[in-house]
């Protein structure tokens, strides 16, 4: 297992390296001069040149990359914002707890709804319960997060007044309020992603039921409970963990919308603000952090899968 973990970790390193190149290249292919755009109509050529020099943009690409990467590694420095001229890293660090809290809440809802729904539908394949759950799943797949979120706000915040319509209090400041705040955005994210998980879980559960080892379990005269839990569930779950890992991208993508809708001060809001203001370095930095987050969470999912399925680890 340890060997496998190391092996996966080693695979992640070149991936992260490539990611850093990609995000770096991203800013280089912007048509036009970002600096000129940044200074607006007031930017004289001299001013532009000076700023370019300050930002190191007048150096060769590889040396810029090297500079950027070494700053990132040595000081965790992601550059400065085009707009505020402040270092980006502290701003990012500020936002990460909120984003993590939302991700975790969303994941909890996703897993709870997705696994339960999918396993029930799969275990009772072709019954009315399965058809109903599959129908809900399909509608869920087709419903945009902002739409679900809007309706949730209208129902639970505006109409019933049970939960706040938006906002964020750090967990450390007021745990109860913080959890209340994160319930609705988390639920919206869960509703967005759970259909995928439910679908995969259902497929895996159905598939497992046709596995020869399940038929053979009957031949061994095992109890129904043993077959359901130790055979069906135990074999269906691991493959869905990989799905969760792969769908994390969608989860984080959905988070962009949710943070905006619920006024949640996470990373994604920073991304949107940066995008709207065309703050390229900010956008670049957030994308890098989101990608790293994805790679790390995905790695965790792979390892969890390996922990549950001995055939994976060698």
């Amino acid at each position: 297992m340890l060997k496998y973990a190391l092996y996966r970790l080693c695979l992640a390193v070149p991936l992260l390296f490539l990611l850093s190149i990609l995000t770096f290249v991203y800013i280089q292919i912007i048509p036009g001069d970002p600096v000129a755009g940044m200074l607006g109509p007031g930017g004289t050529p001299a001013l532009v040149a000076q700023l370019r020099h300050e930002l190191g943009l007048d150096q060769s690409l590889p040396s810029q990359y090297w500079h950027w990467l070494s700053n990132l590694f040595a000081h965790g420095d992601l550059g400065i914002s085009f707009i505020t001229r402040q270092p980006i890293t502290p701003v990012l660090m500020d936002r990460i707890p909120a984003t993590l809290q939302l991700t975790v809440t969303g994941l909890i809802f996703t897993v709870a709804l997705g696994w339960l729904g999918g396993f029930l539908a799969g275990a009772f394949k072709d019954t009315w319960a399965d058809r109903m759950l599959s129908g809900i799943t399909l509608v869920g797949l087709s419903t945009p997060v902002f739409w679900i979120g809007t309706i949730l706000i209208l129902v639970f915040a505006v109409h019933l007044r049970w939960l706040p319509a938006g906002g964020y209090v750090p967990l450390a400041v007021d745990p109860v309020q913080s959890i209340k705040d994160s319930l609705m955005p988390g639920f919206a994210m869960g509703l967005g992603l759970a259909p995928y998980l439910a679908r995969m879980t259902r497929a895996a559960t159905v598939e497992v039921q046709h596995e020869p080892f399940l038929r053979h379990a009957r031949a061994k005269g095992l109890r129904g409970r043993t077959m359901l839990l130790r055979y069906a569930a135990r074999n269906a779950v691991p493959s869905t963990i990989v799905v969760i890992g792969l769908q994390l991208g969608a989860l984080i993508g959905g988070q962009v919308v949710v943070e905006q809708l619920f006024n949640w001060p996470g990373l994604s809001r920073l991304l949107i603000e940066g995008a709207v203001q065309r703050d390229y370095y900010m956008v670049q930095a957030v994308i890098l952090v989101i990608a790293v987050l994805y790679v790390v969470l995905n790695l965790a999912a792979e390892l969890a899968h390996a922990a549950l399925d001995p055939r994976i680890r060698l």
Partner: protein
Amino acid sequence: MTAPAASAATPVTAQRRRGTLRSRGLLNGRVVFGGTLLFIVVAVAVVGLVWTPYPADATNLQARFAAPQWLHLIGTDELGRDILSRAMVGAQTSLIISACAVGIAAAIGTVIGFLTGYMRGVIDIVLSRVIDAMLAVPALVVALGIVAMLGASATSVTVALAVAYTPQFSRVFRGVVVAARDQTYVEASRGLGLPAIVVVVKDLLPPVLPIMVVQVTTSLAWGILDEASLGFLGLGVQPPAPSWGSLLIEGRQYMYDAPWLPIGAGAFVVVAVLGVNILGDGLRDVLDPRAWTRRHSYRKGGAK
């Protein structure tokens, strides 16, 4: 089950497959239902070209924020414009953007998928890793980043979504091509000394096409959703030009006073995506061999 029987399971499923294809054709229930929904949405968009209940940008300050009613089926906005009319016109923009984005992504992704899957070697290793890295960034985030670069417009949204979807296409096709390439019959074709292009056209393309259809529908659903999401985030087609996305960003500001604004425009998205998804599901059942094996592989040779 005997060894010969085990291998005999293959032709049996093959027979089933062909039987299903021929007798039911492409017309299973979900294909029909999903296709109908999609057809309605497209029809509404086409009708919107020539006729809408009201001119899409006609303001009517007497009827600001009108709730859904007979004259305005899904209400009006802050300038008294009819949401239904705007959504009908916006449908064109949204559908064209997503269709173009998916088309471009499919074209490029297929080429990359074939290159990496068939060539293997260094090309495969390098490109596949790059694709992996690109897939690590969520499509919507990629699109956001690109729109930020290019400025929000219909064109940049199209380009952004196309770039965001390309890695998925190439990964799916690489998988299919690699699987097909390892088939013994492909090895046999190569063994006959046939040129690579013949092998690709005769043996590799046919299994890819049905999966392409399925993947295109799936991505189309995503395209409609993501276009709307970008609009919602203020980075899509910019108001006052109508698209489902831009209607949403307008509607969001008045969410509390006029909830029908976001909900009404969103409902169009839901119906369109639902149609595409159901259609895609149906097509997957009919076309995607991976779904067949899932359903039939357990069957025994003799147990037809």
